[in-house]
């Protein structure tokens, strides 16, 4: 052997690479867990973390859709602002992020299944227990054509929740042939007044904190795109992101004539372009079950290494019915929603 030094360098660095590869694919040395219970007056949380990690506990009022959340995806139906491939990628990513946060995710629904869910909810009175995410830029015509007796409109009135990203909400109705039909009066239909949505398609970023930014910051929702976002002065709304010129990046608002929640993220979710974190922040909002009237009642944070147990005094928080706890920060390592009666 001509030179031991060279071979030592090769051996060391190849071994380091292989060790790293093993850690990614063969061994998973990292584990995180969150448990929560309560006795009516106190919330008990215990955290386990195989690494040093930040934790956040948010005690919330008026959370929504505890029965489960779905994602609308139908490759036959038209899309806007995004291609089917991009949408599929985004949903894949979103599903992973929801899974990390322990969200009550029930899976994808196509246009027919979505209509089925809404019909069933309307029959059984369970609309308030469900939410669905729409990133397609258009609602399918099985639930939305732009009239007051559309399933979507009735379902929202009955308390359903929709989380939206990509384009102007309600502007398009999509059919099974892949076509889009523009809907006149969509803003009045969904929000009860005209001009609720920022129709600008160019990217616009905001810097000023929304009126409920404390809630957004506690959930590490750092999302600032406001094109296609909602107005922040809509009645019964919370703006948990950032705002500029009267529009917010993440706004949750009460639907027209009813008790449903419409949560809108501005901008687009296109993978790899600027707001690549959109699925992460969307997942955080969904996993925490935020609705238009959710209030952050108390927040606890700190750092955990190995394990930690803590409590939150609930006696003074009469409206408190739920808590969302997560490990990590902008990138969550693990999350859990807990609701008590």
């Amino acid at each position: 052997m001509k030179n031991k030094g060279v071979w030592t360098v090769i051996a060391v660095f190849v071994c380091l690479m292989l060790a790293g590869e093993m850690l990614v694919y063969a061994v998973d040395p990292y584990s995180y867990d969150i448990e929560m219970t309560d006795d009516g007056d106190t919330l008990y949380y215990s955290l386990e973390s195989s690494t040093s990690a930040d934790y956040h506990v948010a005690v919330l009022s008026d959370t929504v859709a505890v029965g489960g959340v779905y994602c609308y995806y139908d490759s036959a139906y038209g899309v806007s602002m995004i291609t089917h491939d991009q949408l599929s990628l985004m949903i894949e990513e979103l599903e992973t992020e929801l899974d990390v946060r322990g969200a009550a995710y029930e899976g994808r629904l196509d246009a027919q299944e979505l209509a089925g869910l809404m019909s069933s909810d309307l029959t059984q009175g369970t609309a308030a227990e469900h939410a669905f995410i729409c990133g397609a830029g258009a609602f399918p015509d099985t639930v939305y054509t732009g009239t007051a007796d559309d399933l979507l409109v009735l379902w929202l009135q009955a308390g359903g929740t929709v989380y939206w990203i990509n384009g102007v909400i309600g502007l398009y109705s999509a059919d099974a042939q892949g076509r889009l039909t523009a809907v006149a009066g969509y803003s009045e239909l969904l929000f009860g007044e005209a001009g609720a949505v920022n129709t600008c398609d160019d990217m616009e970023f905001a810097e000023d904190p929304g009126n409920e930014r404390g809630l957004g910051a506690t959930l590490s929702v750092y999302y600032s795109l406001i094109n296609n976002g909602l107005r922040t002065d809509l009645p019964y709304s919370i703006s948990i992101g950032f705002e500029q010129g009267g529009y917010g990046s993440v706004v949750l608002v009460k639907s027209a004539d009813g008790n449903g929640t419409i949560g809108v993220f501005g901008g687009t979710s296109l993978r790899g372009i600027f707001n690549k974190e959109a699925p992460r922040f969307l997942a955080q909002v969904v996993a925490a079950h935020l609705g238009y009237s959710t209030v952050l009642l108390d927040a606890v944070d700190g750092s955990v290494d190995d394990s930690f147990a803590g409590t939150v005094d609930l006696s003074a928080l009469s409206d408190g019915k739920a808590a969302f706890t997560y490990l990590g920060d902008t990138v969550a390592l693990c999350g859990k929603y807990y609701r008590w009666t």
Partner: protein
Amino acid sequence: MMEKYVKRYWTAFTAALAISIVISVFLTHTYDVSGWSEVCNNLLAGEGLYGVEGYYYTPVWGYFLSFLLYLGTLFGISPTMVQQDLLIGLENGGSPFTSMITDFRFVLMLKLFMILTWAVNAYLIYHIVKEWTGEPRKAYTASGLWLICPLTIVIIARSAMFESLTVMLLLLSLILLWRGQYFGAGALWAMASLTKYFPFFLIFIFVALILVRNRGEPKKALRQTVEAVVGALLMSMVIYLPLIIDGTVMDSLSFITSRVSESWLGIYDVIYTVSALIVSAYVAYCYYKRGSTEIGSFFKAVLTTLLVVYFLPVGPEQYYIILAPFMAIGAVLLDRRLGTIMVVAYSLMIVSPLFTTYPSDFLVYLNAFGSITAAPPIIDTIVDNLFTAAGIMILWLSLWYLYKGQLAERKALKAARCSHEE
């Protein structure tokens, strides 16, 4: 008694190391380091390298990150990244900064790893030149040029970019290739190319060396080429097998494919890459036709290939680090003016990275600035890009110096032929 140049070498090493460590501790590039932190957080969450957004490169650097992450967790160091409301204005898509503040200890660990590869590279350059020339003074000079390369120091110390790792793997491949250990050379070339793709362009010239060494012995040439190919394929399989099983091979190429899909930049990249491949193949062909097994002849072709690849802007300044050790070796092997070109060009190229450097999290801990209450100024990128462009143009001089003699010879030959005909 230690020679004077050896003393100078160690002085340069100590000074460069000290500067690297000072920059590492006090300054950072929030955009890149938060990217590494994001990748590591995804690993912690069990999403692997490509499960969610964050990692856009081929997997080798990700594997090293994975190892470093594990090492850090053993010492209680985590890739904590916290965003700041006050800095959210930086998240506007065009900013070289981010609102993310990444844990200082974690970032320092990555930077120290890169500093380690930088030091190893100095050793490898020394080793290569000593083995090839037998002259320690030249070996120290080439290694010293690498050590004082300003761009390398700044990039490693402010953002822990992994070009230095690519350089190391490529130099190891070159050492084995020259020694005739083709299996290992192929394996390390593959590893280098799968770290950052620039070493890929050397494939033609590496094969040409085998052919030149075996002129008139096609069977031997074929056997040695197959050895190198098997080495490269085996290493690629080791690196890529989990991705093939996972179905994430295309995700690992998004660094390249996302650029291709981006309008004019994509068209430029495709045309430029194809052109560089064609010219690289042509350089290898010329070397095969007229070159010899003498190291100067081979190395001139290697350096020419890289100068062709880096002839026009190929991306951020850090990409040019891969050329640096070859310029340093070329300075002692081919033309000493290459050393001057290298130092001047790479000094100009640090202007842009310095414009996007920010106080590190460590200064926030120290409360040196009170707290982060203001976004850093976004400086007009035209100004700093002018410095980078000037650096690239100065690198062009290398080709002139390398081929000036040959051009003069041809001219003289042509003149002689003309006068003979008259």
